[in-house]
Each structure stands twice: as C-alpha cells, then as structure tokens.
C-alpha cells in the first residue's frame, strides 16, 4: 500500500534492489548449505572411503554406524553432556541472576565478569581448562604443592570421567550468558509485584518460585534452545580439551564424524553420522520453528 503511493519511477529499483542485494548470500547458502547437505546425504548411501566414490550401497553405512561401539559412546556422551550442561548452566545462571537482582553494589562489574567467558572461543576455554585440569600442571599439582598430597583430580585422563571435564568447561563458559538472559527477564518484572507478594506474606524463595520464575517461561525456552544448539554443535571444546580422549572416551557425534570422514578414511560412515545429527537437530528445531512461525503469522 505504501509502495503504491510513491512515484512510479522508484518502483523498479524498489522491487529489485532488495532481491539483488540478497541474491549472492541466498545463492551461497543454497549451494554451500543445502547443496552440500544433499551431497552429504547422497554420500551416506555410497561406499565412499578416503574420497567420494559414487557406488550405491543403500543403508550399509547406517548399519555399520549402528553396530559401531564408538558411535554409541559418542551418542551417550552427547546425551550426558547435553543434559548436565544444559541443566547445570541453567541452574547456575538462574541462581546468579537472582543474586544479582537483589540490587547489590558493583552489579555492572560483576555482570561483566560473569559474562566475559562467553566472549572467549571454545578453543580458548578448552585449552585453558586443559591446563587447569591436567594432573601434572593444574589443580592437582597446586594442591600437592600446598601439601595436600592425597588430593587427586584426574578426570581429564580418566576414560570414565573425561566427558565431565567437558561439561565443567562448558558450564563455566555459558552460565554467565544464561545469567544475563535471565537477569534481563527479571529486570522486566514490575517491582511492585514483589512488594505485593511481600505484603501477601510470601517469603523471598516463595516469591521467586511461585511468581517470578513462572513469569520467566519465555526466557527459559529461548535459553533452552540456545543451549541445546550449543550442546549439539560442541566440537571445538572437545577437540581443544580432551581431543575426544583418552581413547575415544569423550567423543561426541561431531568429533566422531570428523574423525571418520577426515582422518580415518571412512567418508561414507562419516556422512551417515552427519545425517543422523542433522535428523536429530531437525527433530528439535522443526517443531519449534513451526510453532514460532505460526505464532508470528497470527
């Protein structure tokens, strides 16, 4: 309607300029994202090994994948990592946000301190934590030097525990971010609601539990989406911190896929694992996008 009231000579540019500007990025994503997804899907049905080989083998690669112990270790690791990372970051973040919401002094400074880890790349986080958790260099050695010689903290080199070091580093990196999101949400709550609840006789924990946190539902869901997304994508942190080791004890699907496709010469298997990841992400994202878009169009 607005367009029709403008002079006619602007019509052409107005109609085509946005499309022209957007065209390169549209083409690039079409080719390099969707095109490669399709190519990868195709590869997962071939006998590709070191290099792509277009010999159709049906679901053979998927059968191999499901029979592969290392794949299941990676899947369970992702599961453990995801649940613990999302759960604990959320709890720590909410807790910090509630503490910071009590109008304390130096809030701006403290907020920056907690938010800062988010500015680091996972590679930096991973490397830093690798040093700190290394029994010969970091925490364990420090305790020994201070005289507590019976202290052991060998999770980094313990195959049963190595995935939890990834959890620790990821929580350290992300809880400040969760805190910032929740703090913004908490600040949006009218002060007088809390006052009203105080007069109603509610204690502070009850006020948060029954009134404020329920009002944080939208923040909770967007944070959940962001953290889930970080968890599934986590690759660089694992590579930097444990390298998937010891052995393959801290592998996640992304590192598994990388190892198969690019270092072990099992491109077909790698493609199949990549397809499995894509499908599980879509299973989460598509219903979410659907509900969001439907809400937006209404």
């Amino acid at each position, binding site marked *: 309607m607005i367009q029709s009231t403008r002079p006619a000579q602007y019509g052409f540019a107005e109609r085509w300029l946005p499309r022209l500007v957007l065209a390169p990025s549209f083409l690039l994503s079409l080719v390099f994202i969707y095109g490669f997804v399709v190519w990868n899907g195709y590869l997962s049905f071939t006998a590709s090994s070191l290099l792509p080989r277009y010999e159709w083998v049906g679901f053979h690669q998927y059968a191999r994948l499901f029979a592969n112990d290392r794949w299941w270790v990676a899947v369970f690791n992702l599961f453990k990592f995801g649940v613990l990372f999302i759960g604990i970051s959320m709890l720590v973040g909410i807790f910090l946000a509630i503490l910071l919401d009590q109008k304390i002094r130096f809030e701006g400074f403290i907020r920056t301190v907690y938010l800062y880890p988010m500015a680091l790349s996972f590679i930096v986080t991973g490397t830093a934590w690798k040093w700190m958790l290394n029994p010969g260099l970091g925490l364990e050695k420090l305790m020994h030097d201070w005289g507590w010689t019976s202290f052991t903290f060998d999770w980094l080199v313990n195959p049963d525990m190595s995935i939890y070091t990834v959890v620790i580093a990821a929580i350290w990196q992300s809880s400040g971010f969760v805190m910032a999101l929740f703090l913004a949400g908490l600040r949006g709550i*009218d002060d*007088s*609601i809390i*006052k*009203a*609840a*105080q*007069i*109603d*006789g*509610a204690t502070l924990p*009850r006020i948060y539990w*029954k*009134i404020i946190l*329920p*009002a944080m*539902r939208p923040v909770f869901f967007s944070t959940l989406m962001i953290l889930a997304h970080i968890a599934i994508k986590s690759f660089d942190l694992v590579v930097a911190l444990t390298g998937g080791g010891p052995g393959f004890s801290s592998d996640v699907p992304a590192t598994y896929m990388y190892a198969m496709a690019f270092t072990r010469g099992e491109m077909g298997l790698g493609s199949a694992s990549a397809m499995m990841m894509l499908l599980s992400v879509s299973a989460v994202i598509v219903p979410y996008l659907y509900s969001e878009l439907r809400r937006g169009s209404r």
Partner: protein
Amino acid sequence: MAMPALPAARYPNSELEKKMGALAIKNVTKSFGDTHILKGIDIEIDDGQFLILVGPSGCGKSTLMNIIAGLEGPTTGEVHIGGRVVNNISPKDRDIAMVFQSYALYPTMNVRQNIAFGLETRKVPKKEQDEVIQRVAKMLQMDHLLDRKPGQLSGGQRQRVAMGRALARDPILFLFDEPLSNLDAKLRVEMRTEIKQLHQRLKTTMVYVTHDQIEAMTLGDRIAVMKDGIIQQFGSPQEIYERPSNLFVASFIGSPSMNFIDCHLAEQNGQIGVSLQTDSDARFLPLPNGQRLAGRVGQEVILGVRPEQLDVAHSDDNVAAISIKVNLTEPTGPDTMIFTKINGKEVVARVHPRDAKGPGETMRLALDMSKVVLFDPKTELRLE
C-alpha cells in the same frame, strides 16, 4: 456496583474483635544517601478514617506509603498502626492490604489464584479460601473473570482484581497508591464512588495516595497535602479548601485553581481593605474584621479568591462589587468561566451560564469578602 452486605465470617479476625486501625506517623524522615525525600512527616488519624496523601509527582507519597507498609524503613521516626510501633514488624505482620498504582497482579496466575495467593501463604484452609474468593468476586462483580489471566483483562478489570486481592483479607489498614491513575476519566469517577461506598461499608482505616485534587476532596476525611517531602497542610477537606495554609496548598486544591491578585493593604474611612483595579473600574473593598491586619497596612499582600467566590452582583448596593471587562468565556455546562484581569492579573470567575456576558462586554462581579484569604507574598503563608 451492587454492594451486598458482607457475610459475618470475615478473615482473619472475627467481627466481634475490636480492631484498631488508627495510624500515627511520627517525625518520619527518609533519605537515599544524600537525597532527603521525606523531611519530618507527622500525621495522626483515628480508626476508620480515610486519609488522603496528595501532592505533585515526586513529592514522596509512594515513599511514605512504602514506609507505612513496611516495604521500606524510615531513616528516622516511628510508624504506629493500631496503637503499636511497627518499625520492626515486617509487612506481612502489619495486618495491612495494599493496592498498587500498577496493580501488581501476578502475571502467570489467573484471577482466582491471584486472590488466593495471600490466603494460601497464610495457610487459610482451602474451603475458607473458596468462600473468600466467592465473596470478593461477588462484591466486585467479577465472577466471570475468575479464570482469566491478568493479560486478558482490561485496565478497569485489572484494577478491580487488585482491589479484590486487598479485600480478600480483612486488614486493619488499607493502603491505596494511586489506584485509579491508569484508568480513563469515566471509569475513574465510577471507581471513585465505589471506593467511597466501600469505605462507608467496611469502616476500615484507609490511606489513599493521589495527585488528583478532586479525588482528594471527594474521598478524604483528612487530607495531607505534600510537597518536596514536607506536609504543607493536614486537615479536613473543608479546612484545606477554605483555609489553605499557604500559596501552594491554595493553588493545588480546587479546579479551576484559586485566583491570586497582588494588592496593597490600605485603610479608608477606618476600614482596612484592598484596592482593586480592572479595565473598567477601580474599587476599595473593605475586609470584614480587617482590624486584625492593622499592623500590615501599606504592605503588599496576595488576595486569594476562588472562582466561585466571584459571582454576578445582583443588587447595586453590594459594597464588595466591581465592574469588569470580559476577556474570554469558557462554558463548561453547569457553569461558565469568565476570564478577566484584576490588578493586571488574569482572574477566573465561575458564574451561572444565564448571567455570563460575551467577550468585550462589561459585567459586575461581587466578591465574597468573608471567604477570601490573604497571603504574605514573601513567606507565602496565609495571613490569619
């Protein structure tokens, strides 16, 4: 709104118990760091009275309210509710209920849960809770709203719910912080009447904050006019209207506000009075019992005249009458406002539409000299 009688069983105290909701605020001050918000507030009201706190934005009304409620502590001074010092008593134990300017409804709870929350916290049995909700819903005519969330309510309905939440308890003191300021004009007048009826029925002590002087005049038994953290005047609405203690109170209360005319206090023929000059007349108007001002003869004073105290002069022998030239008229329906100039100051007179003359014409106005007030231009205080 229909006002069915309250059932005898009320929460939490029995009807029989004599409840003392008297409120006393003794020399209360409040500072945030170096900014002094309240500078020595003294107010005392009896059980069952309706106290209005009125004043311009930022004068500290909400701060005082929060101190009464216990949501903030005073820097110095004491608050007494029902005869006991409550300074160290938490809000929930002060037996008060409060309605907030922004309503402060719990956003994720429906109306029923909003009302029940305070009862639940106080461990009222479920059955009793339901009775209270039914009673309040009926009283405020919101049975049909009980299952809605605050987001699905209009401003007026939210206001009702906020009120209902306060009424669900039977406190000894109600606190209202500008409960009507977010409503449109019509709803506001309706709710004002409802609140007044409510007070007459419940006879519970109420403190009501507003910056609307009409609300202040219509609702209050006692009005405290505040400015800059100081009580400018505390008294009955009539006292404040008729005998404002200073220029601020005089101009703040009343609409259109009081006319202030600069004049000279003079003596003529043994009578003390003021000289007024209009575009068409000049008069000396003697003040009844003007002798009390004998010591001020020759000094500047400000004459305060309410618009309705300037009426059309019907008989020519009225001493305190003056002829004026009409500059502008504003018909409001029941009255017409006449704008003119006296002693160079814009003056408004409120006359019957029948008597109003058009712009440019002259008319005779009578001043009710027994009701006018005089102020000292320097101290701005009313001259006794």
